[in-house]
């Protein structure tokens, strides 16, 4: 079990709450809230230790394409980078939906 924290400066404000993914082996859940302050923050709890660099890469790539400014809470249960990206982009879609 490892706890990771990342911060970004992003331009597109998150205006509502979104929840995607599931707590299951090989998967993860992401909770997104409007940002507390200026910065985008991510707090990740992961069951797979030693992947900080991979997380950094996944997040860099995601925010370069979709610069969402919000507060992200992530509970990871050994998801591959592909699954992480799927859940992040699903959250992005959920936040865009006019509901």
């Amino acid at each position, binding site marked *: 079990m490892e706890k990771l924290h990342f911060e970004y400066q992003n331009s597109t404000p998150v205006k509502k709450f979104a929840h995607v993914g599931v707590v299951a082996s090989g998967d993860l859940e992401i909770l997104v809230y409007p940002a507390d302050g200026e910065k985008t923050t991510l707090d990740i709890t992961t069951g797979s230790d030693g992947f900080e660099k991979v997380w950094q890469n996944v997040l860099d*790539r995601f925010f370069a394409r979709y610069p969402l400014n919000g507060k992200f809470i992530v509970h990871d249960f050994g998801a*591959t*980078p*592909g699954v992480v990206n*799927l859940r992040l982009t699903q959250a992005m*879609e959920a936040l865009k939906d006019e509901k």
Partner: protein
Amino acid sequence: MTEEKNWHTHRDAKNARLASASSLFNGKFAKTEDVVEVLNTLIKPGDKVVLEGDNQKQASFLSEALTKVDPERVHDLHMIMSSISCPEHLDIFDLGIASKMDFSFAGPQSTRVSQMIADGTMTVGDIHTYLELFGRLFIDLIPNVVLVAADKVDREGNLYTGFNTEETPTIVEAAAFHDGIVIVQANEVVDKLPRVDIPSDWVDVIIPADKPYQLEPLFTRDPQAITELQILMGMMAIKGIYAKHHVQTLNHGVGFNTSAIELLLPTYGEQLGLKGKICRNWELNPTPTLIPAIESGWVQSIHSFGGEVGMEKYIAARPDIFFVGKDGTMRSNRALGQVAGQYALDMFVGSTLQIDQWGNSSTVTNGRLSGFGGAPNMGSNPTGRRHSTPAWQSLKPDDDPLAKGQKLVVQMVETFGANKKPVFVDHLDAEEVRKEAKLANVPIMIYSEDTTHIVTEEGIAYLYKTDSMEERKAAIEAIAGVTPVGLRSNPEEVKKLREKGIVALPEDLGVRREDAKRSLLAAQTMDDIVEWSHGLYNPPAKFRSWS
């Protein structure tokens, strides 16, 4: 006057061998318990021997017997096998019975094959595609002896190979018409066959086996294991490739990605109004996951390389779709299936373990010399072909008056494997394996030049649209996630590639990632597939969650 040359030395040798073993025969039949002595007598040192074994069906009675022959009498055999599947296929090398191997695929034994080559226990002729291997049986790998498996044999020696005819007729033909010896293991001796698949005239020796030949349900995928990521990739492929190029004739590889597509046709494909427009004619083993699409009227025909355990009754009840004999059982044919797969299809969709920065792919990874089976045939563009189908024509460059179309060769991969190893790498492990195993060619499965599309969870790279290797590399980087290759991509470049239509992300295709749910699959369990089949599909025990 010079002495007249003997032009029938092969025939003389064959007759002499059969005569020396005649005490073991009653007509063409030998006794089960005499199998080892039959092989001791009929096989000579240095013979080229085809042992039937592919990724599904194994002449397991004969392969086990071959491990028991006397290495003093039978040694240095040159084995020719489409698939090295069973431990005994390699035991004969440890025992000094065989020394050389020409093969196509070594999936289950790939680690040991690697070791044996490194140790010098086995020398490799070549790692072939199926069609190269079958073709060479008639050119420079003409067999002295072939060991094959039949389901049923009648008293005259005619063979019924049924659903699992696969490559048996091709192997037998290579021997029967060039004075090779054809030895058959039979599951059952009967008075009357359902039909004749191979005439007795081609067969020399029949040995009733102690148990039925080994058969693997290789193409059965449990929908329960299909992930949302695979569903997303399937949705992108259907919209961004199948529909875009009007793909009507195709082959699917054996992975879960393509199973997902098969199960999305009756749902997502239907929503897109694609029924009747795409995926009509197939070269494909009878995969259970295609049943919902067949039952919903998507599929006009399916020709198969081999059978699939559990599909017998379903196929028998759908002769309009499958290739079925008058007796009601399917006939498969691997050689003709591979010919169709290479030459007659709009598209091949497969998967792989590694793709390099240029777009070459391989399932050969460090320490595993797996070979490739059918993928290199299906996954290559036969340049002599001339096709008028919309899909083939749609890849024709429009700036060349003499241009021709191209087969669609699609690789579908997640950027990272389940082991969290990157699929996109700068250099394939295969480059190293070539050196270690002293192979003439790097064991690449599908070459970059033949690969027209790559699909990942990030998007689709339309490689056929690129006009330089630099652009091709950039397109791959754009969809390669956070692999070492993908990390070189930059947002500006991705934007340009998207504008040129060389890269498409889900939003560019109008695919919503949130829709990628398991509920979109036409069948989510094996139970659902059985229901779609009206109870005709009978899953093998290991795929059953009940009883």
